[in-house]
């Protein structure tokens, strides 16, 4: 049996990688990849806590929420990438440092 803390450590690492990618990359697609990593880390945590919680056969809340997050991530990726393509068509760049029309 793999201890719960190992899953949590893996998820923490994935989340930190995703956080760094979302904050530090200039390309909008790379930022989106960081967000996907963070969503995956959250999912690992949910499923790990479901598996180690009370009555995993009766209470499937953790798995149900993980399925909902997977669906949400699909919607997020579709809208995000469509926005990126629309911005690229308009501005010929997806460097988030150059997209500063709304900056005061």
């Amino acid at each position, binding site marked *: *049996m*793999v201890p*719960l*803390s190992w*899953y*949590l*450590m*893996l998820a923490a*690492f*994935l*989340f*930190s*990688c*995703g*956080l*760094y*990618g979302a*904050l*530090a*990359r*200039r*390309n909008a*697609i*790379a930022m*989106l*990849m*960081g967000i*996907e*990593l963070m969503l*995956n880390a959250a*999912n*690992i945590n949910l*499923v*790990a806590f479901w*598996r*180690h*919680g*009370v*009555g995993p*056969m009766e209470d*499937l809340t953790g*798995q*149900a929420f993980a*399925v*909902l997050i997977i*669906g*949400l*991530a*699909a*919607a997020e990726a*579709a*809208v995000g*990438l*469509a926005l990126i*393509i629309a911005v*690229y068509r308009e501005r*010929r*760049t*997806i*460097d988030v440092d150059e997209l500063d029309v709304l900056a005061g």
Partner: protein
Amino acid sequence: MQLPLGIEVPIPTFEQFVFIQVALLTAVAALAVVTSRNLFHSALALTLTFFGVAGVYIFLEAEFLAVSQVLVYVGAIAMLIAFAIMLTRSMMFGRTSPLNNQWGKSSLFAILFFSALLAFARATPWPAAGEEVVADEALIGQLGREFVTTYVIAFEVLGLLLLVALVGAVMLARDR
């Protein structure tokens, strides 16, 4: 197993040994996603990470989620990202650095955050082992029943959200 300096390391069981391999693969791929200079390499590493996470779900005896992960993430999201990279190719091989000027602060913050989570995960006394789970069709059937009883509102809202998001994505990306 006794390491030098008198550190006691428990010998991993076979399951733990395999888990360490999968976790290392996932972690290295995730690191490659955020450090690779070539965006397309990032996307391939991201696909590998998704496979690794599916493997972790197998360890957690959540087979349905593992299959969904491969279908949705590897099949759809990784594909979408690859298409988006190819449609916006001018940024693919960056002439400039792929990082913005706050990467130093970001990496420091990410490392601090990771250390905090690590300390928390190690210090908290978690329950030693989960209860017995018989992962078969009955479990997946029960998950399906929960979606049409307990979580029916969340399920329907998610369906509506997916519909709106996909129609919106088509509208946004359409060539006018």
